[in-house]
């Protein structure tokens, strides 16, 4: 049996009468950077929350070989929600120290993470006074604490300048080479090009899965932006 990092079979989430995710079926190999792309409101965050164990769902979802929501998974998943989810009235370092204590990570871990997200110089700054991009990095840093095997990063590069964005993608690459699986959501298509594999979501359904090159090939396009638009056009024609 292959050890998939993620395995979804007929994964469904509904809120009231609305189907937020319908019948997602896919598998993902470990140690890769997987992009989760699609227009806003397409269900990216809901899928991440389901994987993190924060979202009720029906169907089958296995994470690192265990059913999603299993308590032991809480040690192995680092989840950085889009909202930030850090304490604005604490400093960068106080935030990291608190969460390190919560997940039982070493104190040295805080120093390592501060370097990884390039926040060592701002460690004593109160998070509420940081820029949006800096706050996003604090939240990312919290997700990196400990020894996660799966990182769920919801729009981690929003509000970052090109240099920092470059550095973060290099970090994602290094983490994947170290054996971590990353699921990174984005609505910026030039970022999608950097992923090993993409899951394209639209209105809660899986539109396509494959490497950026493969998706460009099937749509006869030259870049991800065009490939994405072509995929959506096909889906809309089929729906009509």
């Amino acid at each position, binding site marked *: 049996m292959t050890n998939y990092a993620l395995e979804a079979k007929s994964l469904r989430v509904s809120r009231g009468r609305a189907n937020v995710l319908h019948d997602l079926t896919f598998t993902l190999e470990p140690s890769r950077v997987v992009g989760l792309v699609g227009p806003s409101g397409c269900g990216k965050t809901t899928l991440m929350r389901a994987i993190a164990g924060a979202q009720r769902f029906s169907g089958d979802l296995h994470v690192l070989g265990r059913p999603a929501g299993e308590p032991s998974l809480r040690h192995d998943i680092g989840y950085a929600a889009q909202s930030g989810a850090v304490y604005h*009235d604490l400093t960068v370092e106080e935030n990291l120290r608190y969460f390190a204590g919560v997940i039982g990570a070493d104190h040295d871990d805080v120093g390592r993470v501060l370097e990884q997200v390039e926040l060592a110089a701002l460690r004593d700054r109160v998070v509420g006074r940081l820029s949006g991009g800096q706050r996003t990095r604090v939240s990312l840093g919290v997700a990196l604490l400990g020894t996660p095997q799966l990182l769920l990063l919801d729009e981690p590069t929003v509000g970052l300048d090109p240099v920092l964005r470059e550095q973060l993608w290099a970090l994602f690459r290094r983490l994947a080479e170290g054996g971590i699986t990353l699921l990174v959501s984005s609505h910026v298509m030039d970022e999608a090009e950097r992923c090993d594999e993409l899951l394209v979501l639209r209105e809660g359904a899986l539109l396509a899965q494959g490497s950026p090159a493969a998706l460009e090939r099937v749509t006869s396009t030259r870049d991800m932006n065009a490939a994405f638009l072509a995929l959506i056009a096909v889906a809309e024609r089929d729906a009509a």
Partner: protein
Amino acid sequence: MTGTAERVLRQLRRDPRTVALLVVVPALLMTLLRFMFNSSRAFSAVAPALLGIFPFLLLFLVTSIATLRERTSGTLERLMTTPLAKLSLLAGYALGFALLALLQVVVTTSVCLLLGMTVHGSLAWLLLVTMTDALLGVALGLLASAFATTEFQAIQLMPVVVLPQLLLCGLFQPRPEMAQLLRWAADVLPVTYAVDALQRVAASASVSGELLRDFAVLAGYVVAAIALAAASLRRTTA
């Protein structure tokens, strides 16, 4: 648990104005009351009961808003995806806010004593009951935040939870003179027991069975409220 308590205290330290208001306002109100009655005997008759109202009210407010912020900012959801146990989180909150309550209770009680409040029982019992009462405020605040989605709603829950208990605890009108229905209601409201216990400590040097019973009921309510608050924390949502 101590990590969460430390974090809560660090957050409070960043907000010195809130801490100052929490500590100073009850003492100022007690002073106001003392000179409103303009008699230390009349003051002594109501001050112990009020020591059961202030810490309860203020900690209920602070805790419900702090927990609501934790829910709306996403930090609670994040904590729920970590191995942190729910009870450990709640105990951390209770411990952090209890230390704040201790500061408030010590200052308020000292001011009351300076203003001529007479206490025949031991100050240790007075402190024990007021601290348990403050913890009740923390526990109910944690619970109440589950029923609010905005800070406006959280503040509106204060009159819902606190005012009926204030009106029915016997401070404004002796309970035996109330309508039967309200006497029953007063008998199930926890602040009633805090106020009764404090009045017993103030009135008599001996630790009576009634005092122990009131204290036990109050402590039971604290445990029950924390258990309910833990049940209201959900790791998964729809």
